[in-house]
């Protein structure tokens, strides 16, 4: 049998659309956050004003101060959610002395929460048909209702901006895949280097026979969506690091660099920062510095990207974050799953409405870069608890594949997305983790989803059947 010729990896036309998230050109002059709210309100209000006549044609649009009691009208403004349990900075300051590890996100909701609508002229408390649990501070909506005698605004209907327009996809010529992975957490206790190596070997095409390698040759890009390193918190709590410990800080990054070099030598990689990465805290997180990746950054296939990250591959628009926006929504509102939060952010046309209220964000003066102006074809969020996907359809034939990428080190899944005209096809590579890093738990698994809008049966639940399949 002749030696098979090595295959050539497919290529895709890539363009990075992250300019809007670059802070390089901004100059901080001590401004606060009113500007970003103002810009958001102005932008969304223009949109909503354009939409209102088609949906509620005969109603006048007023400002809060222009409300008249009993008169039906439309109000457009920013929502503010008054939450009893929301942590206050004063309480946190009082507790500051005690050593606090990273706070686990939990929900701050309370039945007494209520919504307030605010525009430049004033505020009014909302009541009525507006589901408080679904909304968060910072969302701009149009409300149909009337003022009550109590001074509240009784909401009859809520009008969101809805999905933005979407550009058309070009027809699919051939299959190409994009691999999403997040939460590698190199350097943490949960990190299993063999699993990561398996993923790299599979994606680069070392592992497997021709069939497998032909699948690998169709992969055109890997997107690492945040939290790639984990530096032990005791080194970054503000105290001086002993010289013997200093190398420990750099070890995870060095290891990640070596692994990344193997990847970038084979295919393009987009590297996004996450909340645990050595990047800035506030959104938009700026790209990780190239000096961290002395090996990988020499390749033209390595791109360090911002968080959020937006790019285009063969006319397919991708947009995604490393998870901070959805995690924050989870803290302050309720939904049946993370995908629903993602859907809401698209309907509100804003990636991170809770910024800057509860999510750190740069105080922009003249723009709000999180506004979603055109609908992506693939919308991904990293560092979530489990893998989920859904195809969202909009009223103007928009189709968005929503993907929630689980943390690799915990649940061990990387997602492979078919980057072509069929966003309903989704491959998932999942590495099953184990309670301990034993060989019995090392497998690389990929799931195909042929359903148009189905949830993938989540195989995390079937861990029992997995572990006894492999006994070494």
């Amino acid at each position, binding site marked *: 049998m002749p030696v*098979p010729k090595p295959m050539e*990896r497919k290529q895709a036309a890539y363009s990075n659309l992250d300019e809007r998230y670059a802070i390089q050109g901004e100059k901080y002059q001590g401004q606060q956050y009113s500007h970003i709210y103002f810009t958001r309100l102005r932008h969304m209000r223009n949109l909503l004003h354009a939409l209102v006549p088609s949906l509620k044609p005969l109603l006048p649009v007023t400002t809060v101060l222009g409300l008249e009691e009993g008169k039906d009208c439309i109000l457009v403004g920013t929502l503010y959610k008054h939450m009893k349990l929301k942590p206050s900075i004063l309480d946190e300051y009082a507790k500051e002395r005690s050593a606090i590890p990273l706070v686990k996100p939990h929900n701050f909701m309370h039945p007494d929460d209520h919504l307030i609508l605010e525009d430049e002229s004033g505020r009014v408390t909302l009541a009525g048909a507006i589901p408080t649990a679904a909304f968060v501070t910072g969302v701009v909506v149009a409300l149909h209702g009337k003022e009550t005698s109590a001074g509240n605004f009784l909401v009859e209907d809520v009008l969101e901006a809805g999905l933005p327009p979407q550009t058309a996809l070009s027809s699919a010529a051939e299959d190409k895949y994009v691999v999403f992975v997040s939460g590698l957490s190199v350097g943490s206790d949960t990190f299993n280097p063999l699993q990561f190596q*398996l993923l790299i070997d599979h994606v*680069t095409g070392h592992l497997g026979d021709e069939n497998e390698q032909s699948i690998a040759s169709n992969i055109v890009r890997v997107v690492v969506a945040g939290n790639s390193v984990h530096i032990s918190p005791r080194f970054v709590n503000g105290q001086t690091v002993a010289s013997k410990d200093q190398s420990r800080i750099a070890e995870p990054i060095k290891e990640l660099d*070596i692994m990344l070099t193997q990847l970038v*030598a084979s295919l393009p990689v987009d590297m996004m920062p996450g909340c645990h990465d050595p990047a800035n805290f506030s959104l938009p997180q700026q790209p990780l510095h*190239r000096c961290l990746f002395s090996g990988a950054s020499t390749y033209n296939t390595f791109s360090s990207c911002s968080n959020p990250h937006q790019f285009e591959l063969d006319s397919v628009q991708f947009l995604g974050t490393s998870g901070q926006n959805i995690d924050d929504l989870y803290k302050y509102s309720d939904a049946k799953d993370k995908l629903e939060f993602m859907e809401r952010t698209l309907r509100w046309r804003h990636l991170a409405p809770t910024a800057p209220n509860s999510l750190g964000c740069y105080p922009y003066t003249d723009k709000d870069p999180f506004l979603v102006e055109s609908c992506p074809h693939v919308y991904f969020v990293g560092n979530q608890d489990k893998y989920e996907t859904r195809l969202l359809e909009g009223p103007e034939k928009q189709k968005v594949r929503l993907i929630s990428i689980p943390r690799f080190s915990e649940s061990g899944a990387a997602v492979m997305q078919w980057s072509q005209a069929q966003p309903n096809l989704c491959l998932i590579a999942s590495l099953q983790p184990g309670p301990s890093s034993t060989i019995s738990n090392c497998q690389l698994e990929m799931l195909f989803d042929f359903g148009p809008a189905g949830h993938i049966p989540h195989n995390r639940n079937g861990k029992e059947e997995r572990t006894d*399949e492999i006994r070494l």
Partner: protein
Amino acid sequence: MVGGAVDQSLLDLLPQIHALFSDPLRVISYKWLSRNFSVSSNDAKRLLQEFVNKHGTDLQVIYSVSGWLKNNPQSYCVKLISGPKLEEARQGFKDSCSVQIYSIQACIPKDTAVLWNPEFVQAEELFNHPFDDENCLRDNRFCGVLNSFVKRTSNGKHVSSLPPKPLNSAAGVAQSQPSVTPKEQFVTARQQDLPVSSKQGAGKKSEKDNSTVLDKAGNAPVVKEQSIDAHASKSKAQNGKAMPSNGGSLANMWGRASAKPKPPSTTNSTAVASVAATADAQICAKEEADGDSSDDEQGIKYKRGSTNANNKKRRAVFDFSDDEEDDNIVSIASPELPKQHTPDPVIGTAEDAEVNQKNLENKEDVPNNEKGSSMVVDSDFTAECKIKTFNTMNHSGITLKQKSSDPPINDKKQDSAAEPASTSPKRRKVLKTRIDERGREVTEVVWEGEASADDKAEKNVNTTAATASGATLPSKPKAAANTDKSKAPSKTAAGNKKPAKDGTKQGSIMSFFKKV
């Protein structure tokens, strides 16, 4: 993987593999084998298979099984399985699964990391090779899937992991970067002169400029050379070469983290980042070019300033300083030159002009002994910034020129505010009202004759409709220009006095000399 003929050359390696097993702890994975014996991964797997066929009885084998699962037909699975369990695992797969040897070892370790470790040690060792060396890790030569579009910058001069030596090797670096975009090259040119951080250092910019003025000769050839190279090879820059380790690495040292290499790299990304340095470089380039009177060959897209020799001393307006460092404000040009005539000296190439202007203004400060702190800042930085932007957009040039003693556009209030203050040597509180870009009417209390950066006194912000801003837009640049102009001449008059350090809300000694 069963079957497949193996070359005789590979078979010759079998005894060597056997010898390796004299070490009972050794784990040989196919990857390790391929790197160690310089064979492709596929060959390494075949080799392992042959080895196991011959000597497999006293060794434990781990297989990787990949295929479609039977019970979950939508899932493609790759598993690592030890020898005894192979058949059982294969049952879970559909028939077309493939089995390959992943590794062989004397005994199965309990910890997966032991499987991975030798491979990693090997990888690390290859990773740590000298930067220029190509090795199997770096070019992925043993992979079953090849990608010819991957390029690695291995030019020895483009060491990205080391901090650039500012002066010594900078020249070498500069000249060895033919494929860097013009902007980056100018950044390099700047850095040749001084090891300064242009992002933060207001004062440092001045050093650059000064040295430029002094070292014309040194600068000119480099700049020219680079520009020629840049121009000639600009197309190369778009080619997908890894940029960052070229000028990018140097640029990064100056905080241009956004200067990433992207195959379709736009000048915008680097340009925005390195605007100020660029602008400076180009200004200086222009100066030298003027001096050399041969800018045609340069291909740098800028327009000649109307006054060349006179431009040597330009005034830099530093409006955005949050601090009161009066070192920043320097007179570097004759104030009487109406700089409105100055055409766009810098921003020729495709850049975000607005951002550039902002940055330019931020960085155009050359320290002088003059503490012209009064000249610039109103309490509303944002507004100032915006206004400046609009202003410069109108003029489409660097705002080096706002120091005409007779501004063509006149905002009555501000002038009148300026005038009375000028008559008295004491600083005075003056009310100024203007409309900022957001449509708000801003009334500020300003200490006339000095930087009121800290003067965030009463600000009467009336958030009228944003539409108002549209109407008042034309007046904004005028307002800005005038504000600056009224202050600028006073700075000039101040001469070379040593500026007093500005405390909060305190006047500086320069206020005596600020009035026009």
